[in-house]
């Protein structure tokens, strides 16, 4: 199993005391599988995604990726995980403003020493970014920026792709194009995909669907 | 306040605004005070009287050059005592101040010197007579004097010979200055013929004319309410002379006194009120309005004259400033003289 999540708990400290966002989540995801994560705003979708991506640590429970428990990892270990094994696409602000598009796309792969120029070129081409390589992120449209982010995430060929409403900020037409490209490319790499989305239509296009309510799987 | 200005203020109680020196008028502890019916002892009394606060040797002269231009000349030595003793050294309490001036119809040159009495830089000896401060000096005897002064602007070298007797003002030389009885010892030699050389920026001039020496000493010259004075020494063409002064009081009144001097030197003193002097015209000089034309009367001697300043700008830019300059007399009598005005602030 690519990903196994067991009994994950997470609460945030607030002014009124601890606020439990996740209360015992379990899920699994195999290689090549796609899973949609839905739920109301504030139900803890992003929090769960962050925990799986090693961006934050759970209070309790286990997250096993490729057989190793990431809760046991330190800062360095989690950074290593983020570099090579897991790729994350956020709704916005995915890119490094000081680097050109080409360097943004190559960034994560080169950090992870998993840079494959041919694959990167393929990604760039498929994403229709070839003419944009010399630009800075701020010179691109929102749709283009998200395509750069997806290409960047897929460049190191991660085993697990996490996406948090990657098209939530785009208009419908653009969103559809970007989503098609993403699903197509993920499928080609054989990676597992966990995607947070609001859209029932989108969720329907993925293999499985998981609904969060009050911090638990409904 | 500058130290020098303070020294001068001390030196010149008479000429400063009397209100600033009220202490001097009333308090004379330790100093001798003029008393009525004086008897003078010459030549000793031509010399200094260290036990009186203030004293002066005061020469004014009306001169003419060969081309008829009128000049005025002043040579004055003031003595001011910090304590009623003489003595030698820097600490001796006698201070001296010299004023010298030359007035032409268009210019007025002034110079001032200061010195202490104990070191030989300034002083007066009675016999032989010598009065000096630095290189300024007046030497000889009272009937024949040699007088010099110098400044960056002018020098003069004069010879004076007396052509008449000494004249005693007030009551035989006891000159009362206020209704309250303030007084000084005061005599004059108004009968000098004078001649010599004036060196001015525009050349040297041989001049001749008449001069008037005033000698006065006291310890309590002004009353509390007196703010300044106007002093006239007039020589009429007929040979008679007149000295008159008017002390200005804060109450708007004046205190006047006069001496009529007949051509033979016989003096007649006139009490307060007999002599009157009224300003007719003022002139602005040194930012002050100064009367430069006066209506002067002594009815008992038939004097009813107009007195005009020859140079209205004869302002003495000395540490304590005042006006002093030659005048022309017209009216019932004609002649010339000198006018001194103080207290015009």
């Amino acid at each position, binding site marked *: 199993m690519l990903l196994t999540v067991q009994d994950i708990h997470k609460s*945030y400290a607030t002014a009124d005391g601890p606020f439990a966002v996740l209360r015992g989540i379990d899920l699994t995801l195999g290689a090549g599988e796609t899973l949609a994560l839905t739920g109301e705003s504030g139900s803890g979708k*992003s929090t769960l995604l*962050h925990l799986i*991506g090693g*961006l*934050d640590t759970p209070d309790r429970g286990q997250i096993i990726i490729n057989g190793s428990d990431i809760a046991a990892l330190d*800062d*360095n270990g989690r*950074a290593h*995980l*983020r*570099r*090579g094994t897991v790729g*994350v696409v*956020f*709704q*916005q*602000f*995915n*890119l*490094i*403003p*000081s*680097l050109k598009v080409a*360097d943004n796309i*190559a*960034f*994560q792969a*080169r*950090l992870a020493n998993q840079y494959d120029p041919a694959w990167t070129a393929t990604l760039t081409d498929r994403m229709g970014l070839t003419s944009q390589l010399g630009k800075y992120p*701020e010179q691109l449209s929102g749709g283009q920026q998200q395509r750069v982010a997806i290409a*960047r995430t897929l460049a190191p060929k991660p085993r697990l792709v996490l996406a*948090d409403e990657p098209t*939530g900020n785009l208009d419908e037409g653009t969103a559809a194009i970007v989503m098609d490209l993403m699903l197509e490319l993920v499928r080609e790499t054989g990676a597992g995909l966990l995607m947070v989305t609001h859209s029932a239509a989108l969720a329907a296009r993925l293999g499985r669907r998981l609904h969060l309510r009050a911090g638990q799987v409904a | *306040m500058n*130290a*020098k200005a*303070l*020294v001068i203020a*001390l030196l010149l109680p008479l000429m400063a605004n009397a209100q600033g020196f009220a202490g001097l008028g009333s308090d004379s502890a330790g100093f001798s005070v003029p008393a009525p019916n004086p008897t003078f002892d010459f030549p000793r009394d031509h010399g200094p009287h260290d036990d009186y606060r203030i004293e002066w040797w005061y020469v004014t002269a009306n001169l003419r050059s060969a081309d008829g231009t009128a000049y005025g000349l002043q040579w004055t030595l003031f003595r001011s005592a*910090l304590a009623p003793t003489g003595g030698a*050294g*820097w*600490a*001796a*309490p006698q*201070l001296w101040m010299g004023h010298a001036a030359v007035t032409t119809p268009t210019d007025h040159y002034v110079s001032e010197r*200061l*010195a*202490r009495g104990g*070191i030989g*830089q300034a002083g007066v000896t009675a016999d032989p007579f010598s009065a*000096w401060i*630095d*290189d300024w000096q007046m030497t000889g005897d009272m009937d024949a004097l040699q007088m010099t002064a*110098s*400044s*960056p*602007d002018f*020098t003069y070298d004069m010879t004076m010979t007396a052509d008449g007797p000494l004249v005693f003002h007030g009551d035989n030389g006891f000159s009362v200055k206020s209704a309250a009885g303030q007084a000084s010892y005061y005599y004059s030699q108004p009968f000098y013929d004078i001649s010599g050389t004036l060196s001015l920026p525009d050349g040297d001039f041989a001049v001749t004319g008449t001069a008037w020496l005033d000698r006065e000493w006291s310890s309590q010259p002004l009353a509390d309410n007196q703010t300044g004075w106007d002093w006239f020494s007039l020589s009429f063409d007929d040979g008679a002379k007149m000295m008159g002064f008017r002390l200005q009081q804060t109450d708007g009144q004046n205190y006047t006194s006069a001496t009529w001097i007949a051509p033979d030197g016989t003096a007649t003193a006139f009490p307060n009120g007999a002599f009157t002097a009224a300003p007719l015209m003022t002139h602005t000089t040194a930012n002050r309005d100064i009367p430069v034309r006066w209506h002067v009367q002594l009815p008992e001697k038939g004097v009813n004259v107009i007195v005009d300043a020859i140079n209205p700008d004869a302002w003495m830019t000395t540490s304590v400033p005042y006006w002093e300059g030659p005048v022309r007399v017209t009216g019932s009598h004609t002649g010339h003289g000198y006018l001194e005005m103080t207290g015009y602030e």
Partner: protein
Amino acid sequence: MTRATLQALLSHWWRNPLQLFTLLAGLALATALWSGVQAVNAEARASYRAAAATLGEGQYDRLGRRDGQPMDQATYITLRRAGWLVSPVVQGRLNGVRIVGIDPLTAPAGIGPVRLTQGADIADFLVGNGPLFANAATAGRLPDLQITITPDIAPGSAITDIGAAQRLLGKPGQIDSLIVAPVQPRERPDLADIAPQLVRQSAQGGSDIGRLTDSFHLNLTAFGLLSFAVGIFIVNGAIGLAFEQRRPVVRTLRALGLPLRRLIVLMAAELMFFALIAGGVGVMLGYVIAALLLPDVAATLRGLYGADVSGTLQLRPVWWLSGLAIALGGTAIAASGALWKMSRMPLLASAQPRALAMAAGQGAVMQGAAAALLLVIALILALTADGLIAGFALLGALLIGAALALPIILDRVLAATSARAKSITAQWFWADTRQQLPGLSLALMALLLAMAANVGVSTMVSSFRLTFTAFLDQRLASELYVSAQDATQAQAIIAYATPRVDAVLPIQSVETQIAGLQTEVFGARDHRTYRDNWTFLNAAPDLWDTTFAGQTILINEQLSRRANLRIGDTVPLQSQTLTIAGVYGDYGNPIGQALISEDLFAGLYPTVTPQRFGLRMDRSKVGDFVTRMAADIGIPASQTINQAGIKAFSLGVFDRTFTVTTALNVLTLAVAGFAILMSLLTLASMRVPQLAPAWAMGMTRAQLGRLELLRAVLLAMLTASLALPLGLGLAWALLAVVNVAAFGWQLPMYLFPADYARLGLFALIAAALAALWPAWRLARTPPADLLKVFSNER
């Protein structure tokens, strides 16, 4: 409306106290540095003025006895009675205090700032019962005397009436010198006829010391100017950031209908209020700086120039004024630019601070053009400048031009480096550094100026020291100098010394005119002392051989410059025409000087006989020799000068100068460091969105923190490497242009790599210290804060 607006504007500061602090602290520090240096300068100058006023030194001619002994009081009376307007002065020491007795009745106005308030006081003063006048510190050294504290009196001096002074000093009837009033009567006898024993010393006579003093002040003034420039950059930075940060508030307020003009007026008023507070704090801080520095400055000046400078500081109202004026003026300049920008900003312009605007926008082009223009002006001035104003214009153009060019140069350098970077981390690091540049450039400019100022002034002071000690070696090459009072004594000295020392070198000179300039011509004996020790700015071959053969003449730099005389030119001297064979440096000398051989001198000026002698001997024997000469032929030690003693003394003086310079170095660097800290803290909030993606993609926070620190150090290093040539240019301008214009001689410039290395290290440490805290904060950013960047609700 006004109240609500103010509340909205001010609320920004309550929410961001750190920004308020940096604004106030930046302004206060800039003011402090400026007013501190000014205060030190002003205090030293005030001390000279007081000394000059106390003694009439430099202002008036003086009469004194030829032999330097006091004159009889009768001489004074003789002169006065001859029409000379002179005023007596008696002086001496009592408990180490210089007691000066004056006669207030004859002293020229302005001599003896004696303050008397009442008639009674002056009377007491004149009759010798009055007090002495001295400042508080001096008064403490005369416990038994009645002292009136008067701050204007020169330190270490007390003034009193001449009579009292004669008594206190045990000099009854004696006078040391006479001050000659500038305006004298029309006619008066010649001095020679009435007081032949007196000589007149003209007012300018002692002024070569004054010139050296001026040189030191120039040094301090240059520092003041530079610290001002540094300060202005900091103020400008602080204000600029304050405006940037409040753009969203401004936009909202305007959108709500607040008129632009009212907004501008309110913001200007608010800033002026801050400037007043910060300026006040700055003046106090400057006072502290000055108070800490002053003892060293005082010691320097007292040692170097014999000028007594008060070691304590008075808080003069003029500092308050100038300090507040600097704070307000600097704020006004900085704010007017920002307000102007705001007034032209479209209402709906992005409320986001535009991080890249400056690097990409028109501003950079304008700045580049201005920098280029200023640097071209500086270049032209460097080639043509002569005169003090041109010299300072050169300094200004060079400094501001370089400061403006700095961000552009750094940007180019970083772009080139990042293009060459191998690893993606390095590539990102350089690119990110380049992106930080606009936000840091003001702080870096301040660092550049601070560094350059330090390099420049250190070079100047050190060059001065090297030159001056070399000059002492040259001029005081003999181990001992002896002066005779008359020809008999001179003969006795020759006879006594010749068998006892290695060489007796007569020193003889006349004052004459060369090329219409006042020149002192020396006749020198052929000896290796000259050949070994003298160095030349320009030298013809074999110049000593030809000069000692009586064929050529050597002249000093002053004469060479003023008369435009060069090697190979000829000058007439009496009957002879001589070719110039060499030009030598002659520091601190206001007039021309020339050197010819002893024989030629004797031929040209047969009446002059030497009265001073340089004696060559083993250094260790000097002390003995002086003692024995005093015992054997009665030449007192006061007639000798021990060269080693002078050198040790002047080196000590320079060491103190360095203390002052080093203290100012550290201070300016600290201020620049503060500017960096301030900029980094301000940028910190903008940094999180820039760094979060890199973190999400697999970089650790610790790594990011380390890179932040490295970035600051690298930028400082780049800046320092640019500051070095700039500082050297600055030093060159000070030494070769400003000094020549001010004093007529050029100081050779030496390089001090070790000093520069140390300064560079200081700059890096300052930058590292400044970056430490922001970097540490960054490394500790909670992941949640980083994640917020991506959160949908943002």
